[in-house]
């Protein structure tokens, strides 16, 4: 087991994602609760970011978290909007400093008691589904351990959001999340191939791959290898 797998399994268990019959909403709440309790934060929100880049709050914990999100929608600027638009993480460790990127948002966030804001996109290559937004009532960058946990919490959220529309997974989201999480090149290559085969977005292709692997009781990298070696296709 790799260091990544160990961290992922620990966080999966802490957010309650391994409970039988767990639903996506429980996991979203669990991720936010985990972040606030373990990562030295004052708030956390999980945002869904759709293609026309409108945003929805999937879950939030801590008083300022929802407020910070609303602020960004209202003002049209902020770390979450930047992360969502670019697919890159945005770490604003000191919103009170003068050189920040969002003059209006920064002032309003500081007034609301948020002095640092970190937005991690739920991203796999070109597939972007939302952001995990972390708020802190004091300035300063996340330490390396907290950042690692936050990145993995974002990975888990990404997997759960990706499978939201997938009926074929049924009620075994816990089983799927336990089986997911192998970020291998072959999976990304297969995603590209399947997106052409299905004439679908990369997000749909990745979700189809995950669902197919899960239903076959195989690892996603094994199924992906079959696709890349052209033993299997997704053509209808």
């Amino acid at each position, binding site marked *: 087991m790799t260091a990544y797998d160990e961290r992922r399994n620990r966080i999966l268990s802490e957010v309650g994602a391994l409970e039988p019959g767990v639903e996506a909403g429980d996991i979203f709440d669990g991720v936010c609760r985990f972040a606030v309790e373990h990562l030295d934060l004052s708030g956390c929100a999980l945002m869904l970011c759709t293609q026309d880049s409108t945003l929805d709050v999937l879950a939030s914990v801590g008083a300022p978290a929802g407020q910070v999100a609303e602020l960004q929608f209202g003002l049209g600027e902020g770390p979450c909007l930047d992360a969502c638009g670019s*697919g890159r993480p*945005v770490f604003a460790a000191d919103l009170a400093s003068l050189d920040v990127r969002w003059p209006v948002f920064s002032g309003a966030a500081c007034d609301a008691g948020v002095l640092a804001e970190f937005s991690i996109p739920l991203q796999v290559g070109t597939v972007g589904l939302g952001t995990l937004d972390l708020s802190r009532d004091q300035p300063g960058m996340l330490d390396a351990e907290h950042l*690692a946990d936050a990145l*993995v919490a974002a990975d888990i959220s990404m997997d759960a959001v990706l499978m939201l529309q997938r009926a074929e997974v049924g009620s075994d989201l816990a089983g799927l999340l336990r089986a997911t999480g192998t970020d291998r*090149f072959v999976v990304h*290559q297969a995603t*590209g191939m399947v*997106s*052409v085969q299905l004439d679908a977005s990369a997000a749909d292709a990745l979700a189809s791959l995950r669902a197919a692997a899960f239903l076959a009781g195989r690892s996603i990298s094994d199924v992906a290898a079959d696709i890349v070696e052209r033993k299997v296709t997704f053509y209808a």
Partner: protein
Amino acid sequence: MQDRERLLAQVFVRLADTLVDDFDVVEFLQRLAADAVEILGVATAGVMLSDGRGGLRLLASSEERMRLLELFELQNQEGPCMDAFHNRRPVAASADEGRRLWPQFAPAAAEQGFQFMCATPLQLRGNTLGALNLFRNDDTPFTSNDMAVANAMAKVAATGLLQQRSLNERQLLAEQLQTALQSRVVIEQAKGVLAEYLDISVDEAFQQLRRRARNTNRKLTELARDVATRNVNARDFQLTDR
């Protein structure tokens, strides 16, 4: 040796020249890998970066064969890169020594015909960003001179990677590392799209992608993004670049 000195001088100038608007981290590290192959006379070079989650990811290698990429991916668990990264110092080993140090990784390396391997950390003022990994398939061990050159190249590259100099270096570094990792994922997705459109292997798809980027003077990552999101007609590749 004079040739090597001249080459080295050119390489260091190039590695330091990263303060440009259209900096592409994958291309930069591919160049580093290619330079390492030339200067150090190795068979293969690869650059792995920290994923910020306790693992390492391959960003660039001098060769893009799938079997080779998998060898690098194995080092997420054990191998010279992992050791250089965690211990923050270079490591070199023969195939025999490798079998003792990395029982899972070494057989896979032997399968590729590698006799000697080494890795040196990419470090920047206390931050370890990843490691430069070199493989030889002949019976020439890595000398202390080789290691010194590899080490120097890795150091300059690490400095070049963090383009902006800033007080809040840690957050910038974290942003850039995560962005770099995603760039590589985009390239893999683009390989798949192209392979499927053109009915070629993913290895060939990468060659097509790189050739097209060069011919049209575009950044590899940018072109890959257009291909992966199917914003370019992938069939153009076959018509114009074969």
